[in-house]
């Protein structure tokens, strides 16, 4: 926790809210710093130094003088390590991530084209996963004694065990190859025309893959959270007062049960963003994940690092957005009590 300056005497709640936010901001700053440091350190941790990245001596010899200069400039060979680090940070903050070796274009340009697709894919998946996981979790908790509840529990455990890439392949086999209902690859129609219908159609299978592999954890957590609240004393007291069951669930159980679920949704964001690497590869979706895969295959390290950085920043920003809404839901966080 970062201690803020002694705040001006304002409303008590507002001050604590500010401190809560400052603490979280410091945390996100630390995450970004670690991501940047990893990005800086990993190529240099290679036995043989960063030039090893560019493959065999023959491949190295094929690089043009311009490319050599660019690489030397980017990695700052020969300078002391801390100066290299500052050069690196300066490049990142001026949005200069170097040149992609496989595409021979600035990394930033390549990433800029891919980012909207990933945002669309991951954003849609987060919303659907959250709605599905929470709704089913509530049903699973309320119907725990019945067939529906245990069926849901079993289903969630099985889907949680499926590898994303394999589920994606099975969906392609079933819906694209056998039933010919949905497109197999890409994000837009065959002629490259962007229409809402084509984009939506191409989104169905990737989003389904991410949602089905992602909702299980959220389901299990929501279910156990609601079950705990349902056996708690305030709820038992409401029972004793003769409050109807529906009303108990709606007014006394759901809100306290769903608050901790908020934290799990934030963890889902990271899971789904990482999942985009796998799913975009399977469905040849033109986003950051597919780009990461291509960069790995082509050993295009500048592009790989750039994609990693942008994916991490995306996760951090999405987390911050979800986090900023939490004190609106939970009065205890507004009062600075929830840590």
């Amino acid at each position, binding site marked *: 926790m970062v201690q803020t300056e002694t705040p001006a005497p304002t409303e008590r709640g507002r001050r604590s809210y500010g401190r809560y936010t400052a603490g979280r901001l410091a945390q996100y700053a630390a995450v970004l710093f670690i991501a940047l440091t*990893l990005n800086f350190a990993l190529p240099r941790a290679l036995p043989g130094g960063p030039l090893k990245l560019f493959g065999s001596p023959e491949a190295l010899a094929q690089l043009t003088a311009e490319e050599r200069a660019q690489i030397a400039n980017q990695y700052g060979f020969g300078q002391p390590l801390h100066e290299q680090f500052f050069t690196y940070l300066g490049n990142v903050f001026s949005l200069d991530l170097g040149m992609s070796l496989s595409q021979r274009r600035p990394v930033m340009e390549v990433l800029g084209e891919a980012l909207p697709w990933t945002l669309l894919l991951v954003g849609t998946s987060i919303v659907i996963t959250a709605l599905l996981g929470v709704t089913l979790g509530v049903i699973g908790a309320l119907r725990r004694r019945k067939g529906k509840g245990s069926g849901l529990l079993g289903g969630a455990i099985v889907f949680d*065990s499926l*590898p994303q*890439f394999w589920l994606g392949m099975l969906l392609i086999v079933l819906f694209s190859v056998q039933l010919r209902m949905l497109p197999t690859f890409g994000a837009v129609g065959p002629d490259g025309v962007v229409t809402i219908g084509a984009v939506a159609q191409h989104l169905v299978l990737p989003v389904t893959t991410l949602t089905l592999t992602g909702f299980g954890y959220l389901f299990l957590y929501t279910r156990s959270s609601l079950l705990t609240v349902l056996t708690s004393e305030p709820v038992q007291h409401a029972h004793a007062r003769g409050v109807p069951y529906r009303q108990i669930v709606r007014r006394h159980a759901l809100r306290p049960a769903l608050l901790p679920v908020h934290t799990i949704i934030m963890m889902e964001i990271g899971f789904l*963003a990482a999942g985009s*690497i796998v799913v975009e590869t399977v469905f040849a979706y033109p986003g950051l994940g597919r780009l990461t895969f291509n960069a*790995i295959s082509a050993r295009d390290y500048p592009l790989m690092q750039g994609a990693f950085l942008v994916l991490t920043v995306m996760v951090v920003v999405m987390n911050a957005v979800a986090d900023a809404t939490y004190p609106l839901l939970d009065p205890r966080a507004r009062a600075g009590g929830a840590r």
Partner: protein
Amino acid sequence: MTALRRAHGLLGTPGLIGAAILTAVVGVAVYGFLLPEGAGHARVGTPYAPPGPGLPLGADDLGRDLFEQLVVGAGTSLSLGFLVAVATTVIAAVVGGAAGIGPRWMSATIMRGIDIMLILPELILFILAAAFLGQAFGIRVAILALILWPVPARVLRAAVLTAWSRGHLEVARAMGAPRWWLLVRHGSYLIGPLLIPVFVRTAMRAILYDATLSFLGLGDPTTPSWGTTLYWVQSNGVFLSEAWLWWALPPGAAITLTVLGLALIGIAVEERLNPALKEANSS
């Protein structure tokens, strides 16, 4: 028969199913270790051969026996899951224990560190680290153990804090016993059993992540594994032909079954340790 009944009483039906699945996979893995060197990556048949005598699951694009890849892959996956789980559980126990009973500054530092680690997506870190540091078996195990410890460490810290407030520990503490000795001598019987679900869940995640990494082409090219087989499925577009039945289906099903078996055992052990959970689940 009595042994089976006793096992059923211990684990319940789901746990027993999980144990059966896992036993079967271990059996396959042992068979895989007995196969001669080079099984699964030596060229034995014609490329793209369909299943036939001698080749129960056919051959891949280089004429390698897909059944042998499946069998050898079981050993690869299980040993990786086991080693990562051992390493992660040890790290998590030490870090979680330190955060539970250490001085306040240590506890606060560790917990903030864990919060930060939890925001970074595990899989992305794993991919990046493997891409740069190499794909050898030992390196993958080390990277996974270093990435996967925060969640279990948090679980174990909570367990240490709960144990710490028990009466007999408070008495012993009042008598002036050193903290680490207290934890090991009087607290371990409370915390020790919790290491089992932590171990099982870590093994699960390690196996899934490793398969994903191999699927992305960052696997160890010298050892057959389920993920690597599926990498070739993807790069050859196998699921567009009927070969997906014997090429793509078995390795994916093997991953799913192994992870499912571990998940069922984990749930059974958790319910056994925490009867309140079982009551909430069944009543």
